[in-house]
């Protein structure tokens, strides 16, 4: 009776509380990992720009080391990172399972990811505004805070949007360590239990979530962008 075109609505309604929990877990993951990534990734990205051979204060040797390190972390497939850093995770959050445990690898992955965005967005601004600021006698700190980060703000907001969207799906792998989240929910019911309708429902939820983040982020960035 409740089965419309193969969709078991009763089953979905039955699982709704669990969906709510899963969504909550996804939000927690994003709300912790992304702000931390921004907080640490921004100075790291600024440093990558600044210490580069054409930056504000070139430090070519150290730059090469940090640059490679960032690439190393970036090249780890998330799933492998998740497992590889289990000792670190245990040290930081005291457990290796659950939502808290997923946040650690997610954050470690997000920091260099966002740092690259920052570096690229700043580099793309061109030498003109930096040159003007230097001619006005700005300190390096002022150039970063009052010029580069202000001019890059719309682009950075776009980058945060992209990062959030990819992390919504990354968090799906959280299931591996019992981290939960909406992606994990979809895998558990769809992949392991062949409850296709439930999986489709979860995927639709993820699509809606991604759309909302993308549209919201784009609008906000456009409002900040005064180039046109």
């Amino acid at each position, binding site marked *: 009776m409740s089965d419309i075109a193969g969709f078991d609505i009763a089953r979905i309604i039955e699982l709704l509380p669990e969906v709510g929990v899963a969504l909550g877990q996804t939000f927690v993951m994003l709300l912790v990992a992304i702000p931390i990534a921004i907080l640490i990734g921004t100075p790291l990205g600024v440093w990558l720009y600044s210490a580069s051979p054409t930056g504000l204060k070139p430090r070519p040797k150290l730059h090469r080391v940090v640059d490679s390190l960032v690439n190393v972390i970036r090249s780890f497939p998330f799933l492998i990172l998740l497992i590889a850093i289990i000792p670190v995770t245990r040290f930081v959050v005291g457990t290796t399972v659950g939502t808290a445990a997923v946040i650690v690898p997610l954050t470690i992955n997000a920091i260099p990811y966002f740092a690259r965005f920052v570096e690229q967005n700043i580099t793309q601004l061109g030498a003109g*505004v930096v040159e003007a600021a*230097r001619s006005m*006698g700005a300190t390096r700190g002022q150039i970063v805070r009052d010029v580069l980060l202000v001019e890059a703000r*719309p682009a950075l907001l776009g980058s945060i949007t992209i990062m959030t969207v990819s992390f919504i799906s990354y968090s799906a792998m959280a299931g591996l360590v019992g981290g939960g989240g909406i992606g994990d929910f979809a895998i558990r019911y769809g992949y392991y239990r062949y409850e296709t309708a439930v999986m489709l429902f979860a995927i639709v939820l993820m699509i809606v979530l991604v759309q909302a983040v993308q549209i919201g982020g784009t609008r906000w960035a456009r409002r900040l962008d*005064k180039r*046109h």
Partner: protein
Amino acid sequence: MISIRNVSTRFAGKGGEEGFTAVDDVSLEIPAGSVQGIIGFSGAGKSTLLRNINLLERPTSGHVLVDGVDLTGLGDEELRRERHQIGMIFQHFNLLNNRTAVENVELSLKFAGVKKAARRRRAHEALEIVDLAEKAKSYPAKLSGGQKQRVAIARALVTKPKVLLCDEPTSAVDPRTTASVLQYLADINQQLGITTVVVTHELNVVKSIADNVAVMDAGRAVERFAVDDLNSGRFHPQTEIGRYLLDDDLHITRTPLAERSRHTAAKGAAETKEHAGV
């Protein structure tokens, strides 16, 4: 006032490449309150020499003195303080896109350490000097090229500098706007007594506002003269490059219309028809 003494700037080559000498042993005295023009062809080293004055580009050798202070001998901190005395404007304006006109001007005061309370008022005053008071809240994207350059001028002036450096200030604007921007620069030089250095590749720019001119070629200052002497015919360029630059004639070889053969004209017409598909 500005004393450029045996300044050379050499850019190191990358890898095995040979280095490049952009400024080659240039000495130039620029009297206080004067307008110094620097002209030359692309790649002559004009911008590099200008950037040597405020040490945006540190010379490889030689000295730059502004008001008797040897900038090449200063540390970072002292140099930054001196830069508040040296305004600069650029061909492409280099305004911050995400700040309004008045915020752009204010930034210069912030970097100069002016207290927040005084910044807004002084920024508005500077915009008034360039007749842009009503555009204070506009973002650069909503301003014309000439207006953007005027905001840049206000930004450079607001800290009350002794020197104003201009790198091709009119190369990105149309001829009428050029005249307007140059008029502002001339007025500012006269009313505020700011020593001004203008880099350009256009002879009429220096002729209209400079007191003295240096011609650059391959990093060297190959000619120097007073604009008055040029106008009165007392100055005659000694170098090939000087003669070329100071000559309005572009020396294009071209047959006058009346002497062009009928044959070529007819052929041209036929080709036009062909293109039009007749």
